[in-house]
């Protein structure tokens, strides 16, 4: 398999995952706007921060950050390298480049996703239409994932697609925690207030984890349990541990016929080795733990590029 094709698959699925995650973040933000009165500039601010596009927003505009400006920036701004529109276009152009590695079903699913989503985002999305557009994004990405699972051989093509997916997903979950870690700290002064209930459910909502959390931990969220759920719970498909486990096994597949494991395999294992129990993580510092995870996963992504010759 060509190194360039491996790279194209990796990025195609990173971008699809990104589009999906951004739509989930907007969905969580929209929910806060609907449940609270008055100004929620702070919440949109932190959503932009979570998507790692806050600075870019300030560079591009001197606008106030609110529902309208934030959603437009996140959904359809061409100068935002992580907007849904840019992500879906990049996913599709990578798919076009690696067309020969994809089944017809996967290609058509991503091509149609691009056609419909870029059509839906061709003009400003009104608040009224927002839920439908957010739904469309997640639905269309799900179609691509579904056809990937239903029609693709479990070979290296599949594994590169998955590595891209899980690196992006781990990054996204870690960022959500990175921006909101303080509401999970025991020292937070507003424990028990209605404010943290909103904050906590926002976190869960932005990883589509409300239902799963309730099923496993009951109706009354405790911050430590939310952290446990998002960091360590291996049943939760968006938790850091779940993603890290997947990356380790996808990389393992790729090195079956390699005599020596490339550096990226060891780095992926380190993501898992740093696994502790939640008390240790809190004792040593939740924020430090997450920062470290983000750093390591970014390094891992760069090493995968090198080990599998994406570019040279």
């Amino acid at each position, binding site marked *: 398999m060509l*190194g360039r094709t491996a790279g194209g698959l990796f990025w195609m699925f990173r971008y699809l995952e990104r589009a999906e995650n951004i739509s989930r973040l907007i969905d969580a933000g929209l929910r806060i706007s609907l449940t609270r009165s008055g100004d929620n500039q702070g919440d949109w601010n932190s959503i932009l921060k979570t998507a790692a596009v806050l600075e870019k927003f300030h560079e591009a505009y001197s606008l106030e950050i609110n529902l309208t400006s934030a959603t437009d920036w996140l959904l359809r701004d061409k100068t935002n390298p992580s907007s849904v529109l840019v992500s879906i276009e990049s996913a599709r152009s990578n798919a076009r480049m690696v*067309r020969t590695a994809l089944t017809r079903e996967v290609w058509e699913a991503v091509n*149609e996703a691009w056609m419909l989503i870029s059509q839906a985002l061709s003009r400003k999305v009104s608040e009224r239409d927002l839920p439908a557009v957010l739904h469309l994004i997640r639905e269309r990405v799900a179609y691509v994932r579904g056809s990937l699972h239903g029609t693709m051989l479990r070979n290296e093509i599949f594994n590169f697609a998955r590595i891209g997916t899980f690196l992006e997903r781990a990054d996204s979950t870690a960022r959500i925690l990175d921006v909101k870690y303080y509401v999970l700290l025991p020292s937070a002064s507003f424990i028990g207030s209605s404010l943290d209930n909103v904050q906590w459910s926002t976190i869960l909502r932005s990883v589509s984890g409300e239902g799963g959390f309730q099923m496993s931990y009951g109706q009354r969220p405790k911050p430590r349990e939310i952290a446990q759920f998002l960091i360590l719970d291996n049943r939760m498909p968006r938790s850091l541990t779940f993603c890290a486990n997947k990356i380790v096994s996808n990389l393992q597949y790729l090195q079956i016929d390699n005599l020596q494991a490339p550096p990226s395999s060891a780095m992926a294992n380190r993501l898992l080795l740093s696994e502790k129990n939640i008390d240790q993580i809190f004792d040593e510092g939740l924020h430090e733990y997450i920062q470290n995870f983000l750093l390591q996963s970014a390094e891992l992504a760069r090493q995968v590029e090198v080990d599998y010759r994406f570019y040279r």
Partner: protein
Amino acid sequence: MDESGYFDEMHGIDGETTRPAYQLYNDWYKSEDATRLRKKQKEAERLFRLTGITFNVYGDEKAEERLIPFDIVPRILSGREWARLSQGIRQRVGAINAFLHDIYHKQEILKAGRLPVDLVSNNEAFLPQMLGVNPAGKVYTHVVGIDLVRTGPDEFYVLEDNARTPSGVSYMLENRETMLQMFPELFAANRVAPISNYPALLHQSLSESAPAWINDNPTIALLTPGTFNSAYYEHSFLADKMGIELVESHDLQVVDGRVAMRTTKGYTPIDVLYRRVDDDYLDPLNFNPESQLGVPGIFDVYRAGGITIANAPGTGIADDKAIYSYIPDIIEFYTGEKPILKNVPTWRCSDKDSLQYVLENLAELVVKEVHGSGGYGMLIGPAATRKELEAFKRKLRARPRNYIAQPTLSLSTVPIFTKAGLAPRHVDLRPFVLVSPNRIDITPGGLTRVALKKGSLVVNSSQGGGTKDTWVLED
């Protein structure tokens, strides 16, 4: 111009009768409901869009990807018509390969005085680097597209021989797929010669053309200029159907005397490269040093027999528009036979008397650039305004060598489906030919291009032409 007086392939010259090959189709069409057909036409468009069968238009940033319009009325050839055509094509393509081998080796045809020496030596399409090079199996043109037009029941003319990197075969195949999906009943009633084995034949043909020292299962790759190329869809389509890697130049490198592609596990040598980039861009060390699309040193590997390049570099000398007028002589010289397919009479403007004739009769002629393609830079005399004619005369006087002229042919028509029902439009035909060391395969039919505008003679997709499925009936 209107369409009366032209030969219509469905309804004949008089427009009243239905020619035998179209009989069953005509019966079916009459029993069909126009609303359903209109829906089908829309559905076809959606299928093409979804599959991504689009082409890029250079210099048109906004509409980066466009669909080539597809018309749901097939173009139908009888088995007898096709038998004669394919015989003529076989003869022509065989002669072209013999010519290429000769022109890059002993040059007997020049020594015999059958072709002017300066027509070759001063020709940009002639590659001196190819002199004495021996392509595996003596095959130069692994893939050829012969452009034909028709003017009457038995009158076919060759308009152009595309011997470099002809494109369009993916449209031929996808058009058929689309028709099979939309109108299965038509294929149950008519015995249409299948074409779906083209990718398998191409793969076989390329395999057989691997360097002789390569054992079984040569590694084949398709070289594309990249996703921005107008024919990128076709490149990915063919690589996909053949199960070979689709490579770009930066995937390739010369490693230990072989051309190799960068895989996730290191460099793997390639035995046969089906390249869809022009000669000029193939190798910045040996040809255009500015090329970003090529592989430095690939030509040296080629010359040493380390790789097969398909089509071979330098085949352009055979489809050059100035050489074109000599193809009947070329056929006679190498086969000893009379040409089966006719050439369009051609005036070479480099010739003084011819230029005079062309200038005096410009309003009746079609003038083409010798090295042009895609319908760009041509003049269709009967459709031009007086001002355009005058402007073109100045061009002709300034650079006569750059042009050839041909009479305006009364191209045949085939109906297309319009809001008002069937309406005749002019068509051409590009059959695809595969050449292996021991065989020439011609896929039955080919790509029919159709001018969608009433009266228009320009069928090029870049100029608003469309395509049709092309049937050869098995009599």
